[in-house]
């Protein structure tokens, strides 16, 4: 190490690229463990879909059974989603443990996470409500602005030809700018709530609402950095999906070859769609641990920057 640098105990803030590298490194070194958890998570996710499809098919005659099954399906859906979320969060917790040099074993990490099962569901639901609310607000606001400008310029919003070129340009420009703004707001929100489940996974005494506000508070001022980190992570996962697409195309093209009318294709379509779904599920399963690891690294980096995590005198006589 160069002289004058802080000893390894005190944690340094990371650059954008280094966050992604660290995340990938974490995933690589714990590939088996994280993938195993991801498989469990995906299975939990699939369970209600497959199980209840089968049940509905078998009970397709009896109406009462169907009604009961619908009820059971709704409840099972919530439970299985919660299970999926806890498994995802487990990966983040394990990754964070590695980062602060206090690794936990799988069973050690699983215990507190499973204990907070319903809080994870609550947090996800809250996040959904918040995002939904903001999307609606943004949509209403942008449409209002658009209508106001359109009326002010004298043309009608139904799309009849504008009076002159200037009006058309102004309206077109307004639409473009409004789209840009709502997209930016979307990205910014994604960045601010990026680590919404990590505090719940790692810290004690955090509730469903608490973890969301913690994510909000920790990401203050770092939204742009987090956006860049997500973008680079996404780029890194692109080769995998291109590979999947290539596999699909190499199967689909010869299959479609001798068919003339769309109707002939139908019997072939179903296995193809099934294949696509399975392949994308596989892709998602492979990629999910990376995102969870990256979230753990971002959380660690933010805590070290904003809260001086790990900034302490070298351990000698005190714990």
């Amino acid at each position, binding site marked *: 190490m160069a002289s004058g640098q802080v000893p390894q105990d005190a944690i340094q803030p990371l650059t954008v690229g280094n966050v992604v590298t660290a995340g990938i490194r974490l995933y690589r070194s714990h590939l088996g463990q994280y993938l195993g958890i991801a498989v469990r998570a995906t299975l939990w996710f699939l369970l209600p879909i497959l199980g209840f499809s089968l049940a509905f098919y078998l009970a397709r005659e009896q109406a009462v059974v169907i009604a009961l099954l619908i009820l059971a399906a709704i409840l099972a859906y919530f439970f299985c989603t919660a299970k999926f979320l806890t498994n995802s969060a487990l990966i983040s917790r394990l990754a964070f443990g590695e980062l602060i040099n206090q690794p936990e074993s799988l069973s050690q990490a699983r215990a507190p996470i499973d204990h907070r099962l319903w809080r994870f569901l609550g947090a996800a639901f809250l996040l959904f409500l918040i995002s939904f609310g903001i999307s609606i607000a943004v949509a209403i606001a942008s449409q209002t602005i658009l209508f106001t400008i359109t009326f002010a310029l004298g043309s009608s919003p139904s799309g009849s030809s504008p009076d002159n070129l200037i009006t058309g340009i102004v309206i077109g420009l307004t639409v473009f700018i409004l789209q840009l703004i709502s997209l930016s707001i979307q990205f910014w929100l994604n960045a601010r709530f990026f680590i919404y489940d990590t505090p719940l996974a790692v810290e004690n005494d955090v509730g469903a609402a608490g973890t969301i506000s913690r994510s909000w508070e920790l990401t203050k001022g770092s939204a742009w950095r987090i956006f860049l980190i997500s973008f680079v992570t996404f780029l*890194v996962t692109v080769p995998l999906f291109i590979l999947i697409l290539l596999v699909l195309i190499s199967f689909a093209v010869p299959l479609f070859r001798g068919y003339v009318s769309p109707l002939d294709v139908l019997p072939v379509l179903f296995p193809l769609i099934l294949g696509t779904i399975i392949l994308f599920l596989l892709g998602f399963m492979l990629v999910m641990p990376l995102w969870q690891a990256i979230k753990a690294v971002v959380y660690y980096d933010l805590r070290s920057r904003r809260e001086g995590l790990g900034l302490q005198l070298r351990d000698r006589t005190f714990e």
Partner: protein
Amino acid sequence: MRFFNRVTYFTPESVELEFTLAGIGSRAFALLIDYHILFLGWALFITIWSVVIGQLLEYLDRIGLNYSGLDNWLAAIIILLSFAVFIGYFVFFEVFWQGQTPGKRLAKIRVVREDGRPVKLTQAVLRSLLRTIDDFLFVGFFFIIFGRKEKRLGDMVAGTIVIQEERPAIRQPFQLSEQAQTIAKKLLQSANLSLLLPDDFAVIREYLQRRSIMDKKAKSQISLKLARQVKEVMELENLPSEMTPDLFLEATYLAYQQQFGDQE
């Protein structure tokens, strides 16, 4: 655990140089920025080219020349020029900025030869020529992730590595309050500063540097914790006067500096 690969090189003079390799994340980030800049530059180039060619064709029309084969020639020229711009961007910057393109500069990484010497034209050209395979067929991506020295095809051919920039030892200056000096003098007399290790001094300095970007509540917690730990280590029974943890840490910093000098 080690997150970043290290490469050690022994010079002929038996000096050991150690580099930290850049890692796929920083390289992907640098590439992202570079391609954006490159694309904008190329778009500008194409626009200017189209205007020029438009004028040229108009002129040829006016003098009535038959230019039926010209389209193919123009297409060939523009493809070659685009390729030249693509390669040229990377070559130019890597040669003139000591192995950094704008993207690499933002990502704080650098291309160097395996022995740490700066890259010359040969290496830069070889690296860039192989970009067509490395970047567009994602072959380089896999080589970087799984290689020991994180070399993509271009690196292997040109004998280069991409390393992280060492942060300079010059620290950012930070503010110290005036009372800290007076308290430091008292500490020099009353406290046993030699019990503090240089590492502890570094941690205190790190805190003082980073406290401005810290969250208020966390900052007060950390300063209290650090101050308590420092007090215990120095076996200081009572503080000379009433002071905040921050002030105590500043005073300790100054006192240590005065007694032992700032070992950079």
